[in-house]
């Protein structure tokens, strides 16, 4: 059986949530296969990320290179080509870095590429069977990848449960030498422009009242802000609301916005794209209000109400006001 490698994202010395998910994704491919974490970066932040990875993975490969202080897919790619054995399975998270690195890496490894996988059905002979979604999750497909030359897989964040125990005690092996020197870069990182923090920091909110397309019109925002006020909640939103410029970017929940962990998350008129769900998976209690009872948000929510938010929210507000006297 092929070896499995998991590419670990990390920031400020801490492993990304996906590091805990890829180990379970690997287990779904083949519970018997050896799994090695690959962590690239530089300096003490890299070391602490490696120690964290060692708690999750039985083996950790470290690539330490000053050129990777800000990890650039173009710099990492040849190093991975140098160390990943032929025929291996390499898992990466399907997010902005994975999307930069994985397709080109598959070419350089002459491996198959399976993008945005949500589940695996295991290995059959020299085929890896996986499940993908198409058309915003309206349909799913079974896909088969030829494993003989190895496979690069990007795994959808949140699709696999995280490893809660993190009870491994992996050994960190320094592969920096084998990985080789950094190439001359044709793409050079300049800086990160941080999104302006708005009036509220929704990542710190305990209660979030979040709105999506169901709000229909900018003026209806008032309804939500009024309710938020009586509940003591902050208002967040899904991407279309920011695209329409009705709320500032800093209020956007989802993979291209903020990841939030409130005690209670109330999704109002949000259908629940996977990008949005990716931003709320840490919420212990999710309420969804949507007039379409088939909306995917109800799959992710704990409690659902099938109602038009424009009618439902004002009534809810009235009831809460009454309660509070």
């Amino acid at each position, binding site marked *: 059986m092929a070896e499995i490698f998991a590419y670990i994202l990390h920031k400020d010395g801490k492993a990304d949530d996906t590091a805990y998910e890829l180990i379970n994704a690997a287990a779904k491919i083949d519970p018997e296969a050896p799994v090695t974490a690959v962590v690239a970066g530089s300096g003490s932040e890299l070391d602490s990320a490696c120690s964290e990875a060692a708690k999750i993975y039985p083996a950790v490969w470290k690539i330490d290179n000053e050129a990777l202080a800000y990890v650039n897919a173009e710099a990492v790619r040849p190093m991975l080509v140098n160390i990943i054995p032929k025929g291996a399975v390499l898992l990466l998270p399907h997010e902005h870095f994975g999307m930069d690195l994985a397709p080109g890496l598959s070419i350089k490894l002459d491996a198959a590429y399976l993008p945005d996988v949500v589940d695996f059905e295991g290995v059959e002979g020299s085929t890896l069977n996986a499940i993908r979604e198409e058309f915003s999750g309206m349909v799913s497909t079974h896909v088969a990848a030829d494993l003989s030359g190895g496979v690069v897989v990007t795994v959808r964040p949140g699709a696999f449960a995280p490893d809660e125990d993190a009870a491994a005690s992996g050994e960190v092996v320094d592969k920096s030498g084998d990985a080789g020197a950094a190439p001359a870069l044709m793409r050079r990182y300049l800086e990160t422009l941080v999104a302006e923090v708005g009036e509220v920091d929704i990542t710190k909110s305990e209660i979030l009242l979040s709105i999506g397309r169901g709000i*229909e*019109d*900018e*003026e*209806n925002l008032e*309804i939500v802000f009024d309710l938020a006020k009586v509940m003591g909640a902050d208002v967040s939103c899904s991407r279309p609301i920011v695209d*329409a410029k009705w709320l500032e970017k800093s209020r956007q929940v989802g993979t291209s916005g903020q990841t939030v962990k409130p005690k209670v998350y109330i999704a109002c008129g949000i259908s629940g794209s996977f990008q949005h769900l990716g931003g709320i998976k840490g919420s212990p209690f999710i309420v969804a209000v949507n007039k379409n009872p088939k909306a995917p948000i109800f799959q992710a929510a704990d409690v659902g109400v099938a109602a038009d938010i*424009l*009618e439902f929210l*004002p009534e809810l507000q009235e009831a809460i006001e009454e309660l509070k006297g």
Partner: protein
Amino acid sequence: MEPVIVSPGMLLPTQILALLIPLAGVGIFAYIIARRVAPLVRAKPDFRFDRIAARLKNVLKLWLAQYKQPRYMLAGVLHILLFAGFLILSIRSISLVILGFHAGFVFPGLDGAAGHVYHVLKDYAATMVFVVAVVAAIRRGIFKPARYAVPEKYGKDHTGEAILVLGLIAILMVSESLFDASKAAAQQQAGVEVMLIAPGSLAWIFKQWLANSSDGTLQGLHMVSFFVHDLTFFFFLCFLPLGKHFHVITSIFNVFFMKLDKGSVKPVRWGVGDDQLDDLETFGVKNFEDFTWKHMLDFYSCADCGRCSENCPANAVGRPLSPRFISIKARDYSFKHYPLKGKFAPHEPLIGGIYEEDEIWSCTTCGACEEECPLMIEYIDKMVDIRRGMVDEGNVPQSLQKPLMAIEKRGNPYGMMEKKRAEWTQEEAFKEELSVKILDGKKEQADTLYFVDSISSYDDRIQEITRSTARVLAAAGIDYGILGKTEKDSGHEVRRFGEEMLFQELRDQNTEAIVNSGATRIVTADPHAFNALVKDYNGLPPVEHISQTLARAVAGKKIRLKPEEDDSRIYTYHDPCYLGRHNGIYDIPRQVIDAIPGIRRVEMDRCRDRSFCCGGGGLMLFYEPIEETRMGKLRVEMAKEAGANVIVTACPFCMVNIEDAIKTSGLEGEMTAIDLSELIDRHLER
């Protein structure tokens, strides 16, 4: 006999001067007009020489009789008085000019008794005009009605110009009166026969006041007042084309050439047929010169009175549109690029120049501005033309691109499948009660085609209205059917949002489907579809709005209505723009409502041709305007103020906007909206 006073026409030097002033004045005026006409010559064609009788009738009613003026009572009456005075005094002023070099000149026909009558008339006219000018100046200078204010972004205030012109008018009246008064006073002192001066008039007051003045003073006043009048008159004439008072000259032409077909949309280019449109290099209005000459004349004719903007719903909700400044900004553009002296400036694009994109998309084409304009200035065709230019450049907001593409691909703005167009007939309860024929002209035939259109086919809430319409049609014993999936969006807003070619495709497809259906009459419950079929389509069987069908059914006792049971309900009827203003159907829907025994109905302040647009239909539902509040919200408040708690509409878009406004205004439970078809359906005696 020695004359008691020497008039300018008696002495050679003053005669020469009095001849030079009009020569120079007329010369300068002719030059200015020639410069002003320059852009009109470069403009696009406009066919306005047809139906002369109708046009002359409009001139009599709207220009001479100032029919629209009293819609604003104080300003209107002041204007009528001023206008009437001007008409009377124009003869006097011209004869006065001629008197300067031709002593004793009298217009043919104005000697003798007629002359006396005219003289009295002109004395009072001058007095009246003087008083009106003073009152108007006080109103403009001290009370400053809000409607004249110019928001900073639109340009400079014109109060100064208004006061100046009123001052000039006052000077003309005073000098004209002094000219006669000084002569009459001199005659009185000399004991000769005193010329006729109307008692109590301005001239009469001056005459009394000058009774004891010396000969020299009177002679001086006589001469000076003549030349003051002469100079002021020609200064005034040449000043008119420089600003908003150009309307004094252009109004008669503007009314004569006014648009005669309300609710229609002008062709892309006059004289270019639909089949030749592909050959046009460019579409719509992108530069000032792309306007038609009549539209430029509109700009010149704007009196900056602000009535359009005061009635414009887009302006009322704080959208970046004020129709008045559509005209004024274009007029100023014209003045700047076609200056009185020097070379004409090269043209600059209108969008991003004098107009903003959102300004142009903000218009719901409700027609309130055009209804109000005393000068019959057109706005909708200009909006459509500018939008055509923007569509041609690809400059369309993202929020409108989606529904437009969906209409192109699927025939409806929602992108729903064609086969679902008749799904409203499949609702469980309805299906058991009625089956609606889908006309194909062969197996399934009917006399009447019910043209449903997109919103009534696909929108969940509006489908209820659609089913009510079907039920009342059946109750009235009408043999009807629908087109089903061969029906496309009527294209009413597609056309008015500037996508002419897409509209034409829809029109052609619908026309073919309608003709193939074999129906001999068409009925629709959607005023937008109604207006499209009547004004934008050709070669169709007669088209009716459901309110007309219902009125006939009620009058012919085809349907019987139960009395209104709930006496707490007070109804008010909201005139949909495309039924009312654009098609003049005001009374018929009211008759239908009032046919319900015991129903109580009140009128809103803004009703009939002053109805306030609910927010617009068709593509306007998709547009995301910049606004402070919503039109529907204001409309619901108006209904509330009128004491109503049920708003009756006769348009699906009004229903969407008004129900939405009731929700967002927190008036649920207090206020409801119902469509005319639903109201009748509910009161059907079955």
